[in-house]
C-alpha cells in the first residue's frame, strides 16, 4: 500500500477539521445579525423540540428504569438500598439524560439535517442559493445550529425528569425492600444544584455538536442518492464519536465544581 493511501484518512480528517473551522468562523460572522436567522431558528426549534419530545422522554425513562434495576441487583445485600437513589440521580442527571437525548437527537434530527443538506447539494439547491446572492450558512446552517442550542437544554431537563421518575417507579417494583422514601432520600443525599447545571451545560454543548456536525457533513454531500445515504451515515457516526469525546472532555467540569 502506498504512503499516499495510508495517509488518506489523516488527510481527509485534516481537511474536515479545516472545513469545520471555516464553518464555525462563517457562523460567528452571521450570529450578530439575528434578523437573518432568528425566525427560522425558532421554527426549527419548535419543530425539532415538539417532534422529538416523546422519543426523548421514552428513551430517558428506559435509561432510568434500567439504572435502578441494575444498581438494585448489584447493591442488594451489600450497600444500603437508598444508595440506589443516589446512583440513579447521579447517572441520570450527569450522564444518561444529556447523552441519551443527544444520541436520540443524532438519529432523529442530525440524520435528517445531513440528508436534507446533502440532497440540496446534489440537486444544486445550495448553488441556487449562492447564485441568488444568499449565504447558505445564514440561510441553512445558522438556524439549525441555533435551534439545536435552544432546544437541547429543555429537552435534557425533561429527559432527566423522565429518567428519574421511571427509575423511582421501576425501582420500587423491581428491587425487593426498596421504598419510595429510600429512593428519594438517596436522590436528595446526592443532589447538588451544580449537577443539574452541568447537565444543562452538557446539553447545550451536545446540541451545538449534533446540529453543527450534521450541517458540516451534510454540506459535503454529493454523488446522487448513494452519496446522500453515505453522507447521512457518516454524519451519524461522526456525531456519536464526537459526543463520546465531548462527554469525556466535559467530565472534569463536573469535578472542578
Amino acid at each position, binding site marked *: 500500500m502506498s504512503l499516499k493511501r495510508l495517509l488518506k484518512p489523516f488527510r481527509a480528517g485534516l481537511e474536515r477539521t479545516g472545513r469545520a473551522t471555516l464553518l464555525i468562523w462563517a457562523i460567528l460572522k452571521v450570529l450578530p445579525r439575528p434578523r437573518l436567522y432568528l425566525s427560522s431558528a425558532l421554527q426549527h426549534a419548535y419543530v425539532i423540540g415538539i417532534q422529538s419530545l416523546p422519543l426523548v422522554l421514552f428513551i430517558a425513562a428506559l435509561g432510568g428504569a434500567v439504572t435502578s434495576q441494575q444498581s438494585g441487583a448489584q447493591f442488594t445485600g451489600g450497600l444500603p438500598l437508598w444508595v440506589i437513589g443516589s446512583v440513579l440521580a447521579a447517572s441520570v442527571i450527569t450522564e444518561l439524560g444529556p447523552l441519551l437525548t443527544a444520541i436520540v437527537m443524532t438519529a432523529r434530527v442530525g440524520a435528517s439535517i445531513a440528508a436534507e443538506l446533502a440532497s440540496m447539494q446534489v*440537486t*444544486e439547491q445550495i448553488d441556487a442559493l*449562492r*447564485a*441568488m446572492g444568499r449565504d447558505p450558512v445564514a440561510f441553512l446552517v445558522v438556524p439549525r445550529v441555533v435551534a439545536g442550542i435552544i432546544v437541547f437544554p429543555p429537552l435534557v431537563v425533561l429527559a432527566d425528569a423522565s429518567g428519574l421518575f421511571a427509575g423511582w417507579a421501576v425501582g420500587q417494583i423491581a428491587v425487593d425492600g426498596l421504598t419510595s422514601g429510600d429512593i428519594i432520600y438517596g436522590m436528595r443525599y446526592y443532589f447538588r444544584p451544580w449537577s443539574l447545571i452541568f447537565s444543562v451545560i452538557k446539553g447545550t454543548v451536545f446540541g451545538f455538536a449534533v446540529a453543527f456536525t450534521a450541517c458540516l457533513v451534510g454540506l459535503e454531500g454529493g454523488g446522487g442518492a448513494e452519496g446522500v445515504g453515505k453522507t447521512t451515515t457518516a454524519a451519524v457516526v461522526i456525531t456519536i464519536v464526537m459526543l463520546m469525546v465531548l462527554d469525556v472532555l466535559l467530565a472534569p467540569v463536573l469535578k472542578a465544581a
Partner: protein
Amino acid sequence: MIEFRNLKKKFGDHSVLDGVDLLVREGETLALLGPSGTGKSVLLKHAIGLLEPDEGDVIVDGISITRASSFELAEVRRKVGYVFQNAALFDSLTVAENLWLAQNDENGKRTLPDCREEAIELLGKVNLKPAVLDKYPAELSGGMRKRVGVARAIASRPRYLLWDEPTTGLDPVNADNIDELIMEVSQDLGVTSIVVTHDLDTAFEVFIDRIALLYEGKVRASATPAEILNSEDPVVKRFVRRTRIEAQR
C-alpha cells in the same frame, strides 16, 4: 460583458477546462455547445463564482470574480439570473416562497404577501397560472418546474441570464416551449444570455447570435450559427453531424 480568460479547472487528476478564452458581448445570446462532460456547466458556474478556477479569471462588468470581495460577488450575482438544469427549486418551500427568495435580497423587508402580485406577473411571463404559487415543487411536472426556475431567475430583473441545459429531460413539445421562452425572455428583458445546450435545434433554429463549441477543455470554435454549420473544422463538422443523427433517431 462576461469574459473568461485562460480559465483552467481540474477535478482530481481530470482536467475539465484547459484554458478557456471566451468573450460574451453585451446583449448577445451565446450558445455554449459541446459533447457531454466537456465542462459546459462547469464553465457557466465559474461565471458567478459557484466554482473557483485553478488558473485564469472571469470578468463580469469589469469585476474579477476570482478577486472580488464577498460584497462585490453578491453585487455580480444580483445582476445574474441562473436557470439550473433541474430547476434547483427549494423543495421545502412553495413556489411563492421560492420566488420571494429571489425577489428579496437577504436584508430585504418585503414580506411574502408584498411580493405576491409581482410573483403572479412573473408566473405569467413563463405561462403559468397563479394557482401554481401555493404548490410545492414536487407537485409540479418537469416542464412546470423548469418554468418556475426561469421565473425565479428573472425575478431579480437580471442583466445576464445563464441557462444550464434548459431543455434536457423534456419531451419535444416542452423543449420547444422552453426554447420559445428563452427567446421571449431574452428579447423582453434585453438581457445577455449564455445557453448551455447540446440541443442543436435550440442553438441553430431559434435565436442564437453566436455559438461557442467547447472541446477538450478549450473553445474550439466561436462563430455565428451559419458559420458553424459551414465550418471546415473536422471536429466541428463531426459534432454537428453526430448531434443531428442522434436527434433524428
